[in-house]
């Protein structure tokens, strides 16, 4: 016999009033878990957005550092190093 037909003929959860109440009790639990997962997903999206913002800010800073190098030139820096060494 086809397993689906067998399940329809003798379901694990009966179609009567008792089956509906038991299903409702389990649905309450799973609905709460599902709602929690949805709330957590929203919070995760917010965290991801914040992290993307911070990464973008870091990229912007690195780019501006490459375009405009340190005003203290290498010659002055070398002299300073020599002075320090002496």
């Amino acid at each position, binding site marked *: 016999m086809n397993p689906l037909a067998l399940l329809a003929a003798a379901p*694990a*959860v*009966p179609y*009567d*009033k*008792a*089956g509906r*109440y*038991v299903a*409702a*009790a*389990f649905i*309450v*639990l799973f609905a*709460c*878990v599902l709602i*929690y997962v949805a709330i*957590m997903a929203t*919070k*995760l999206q917010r*965290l991801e957005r*914040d*992290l993307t*913002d*911070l990464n973008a*800010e*870091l990229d912007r800073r690195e780019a501006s550092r490459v375009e405009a190098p340190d005003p203290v030139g290498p010659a002055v820096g070398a002299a300073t190093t020599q002075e320090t060494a002496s």
Partner: protein
Amino acid sequence: MYGKGLRALTFATLIALSATFALVVFWAPNDADQGFIQKIFYVHVPVAIVTLVAYVVAGVFAIKHLRSDDRRWDLRSYVVIHIALIFNVVGLATGAIWAKASWGHWWVWDEPTLVSFLIVFLLYATYQPLRFSIEDPEKQARYASVFAIIAGAFVPLNFMAVRMATSLVHPRTFATAEGGLPGEMMFVFLVSLVANALLFWLIVKYEITQKNVTWQLRALRRRLLGDDAVAPIGRSAAPTIAPERAP
């Protein structure tokens, strides 16, 4: 790290919940008196037990907070009570469904077990407004801990009082004098209890980890962009742990 072991715990919870559902539907025998309706027992009773134990655990965390003055214990106590309240609602809802199916009424006011569970829920429902009403974080944490300890001590006292009271219609589940649960039912019940406890702990861990990540990110934003880039928190019921104290 609060998120340590989160993946393993998630898989364990998933397996335990799936096993519970399969055992309840396909293996647990039907009750001789109530028939299939009695299977609500496997979701209602474990959820209620986990809720009450969680309230006591929150009280223990609150004691640790007051003894050590470590705000992380306040965070744990807060999150445990927060999730226990949701489990409490599930317990009340599944109980009402079972009552309607079994007794024909959604609620019976002269039944001590039901009313006491509602009283516990209403008691803990005041926890969040209490926290929100206190602006100073230090004072808020201290008052909330005192509340959690007193309320946590009330829970077992309340439970014992109800057990000693004369019940009208609500059954005494583990009363061995009346026969108790048969072996197969007890096995499924214990699996369900473990699954619900794992689910509770998993949600608590997710919540604490999320809060910790939010705080770490906030601290990072402040270090990178300065104080002006971080919006003030304002008044909040949730505890605010200093990022440098977060592990």
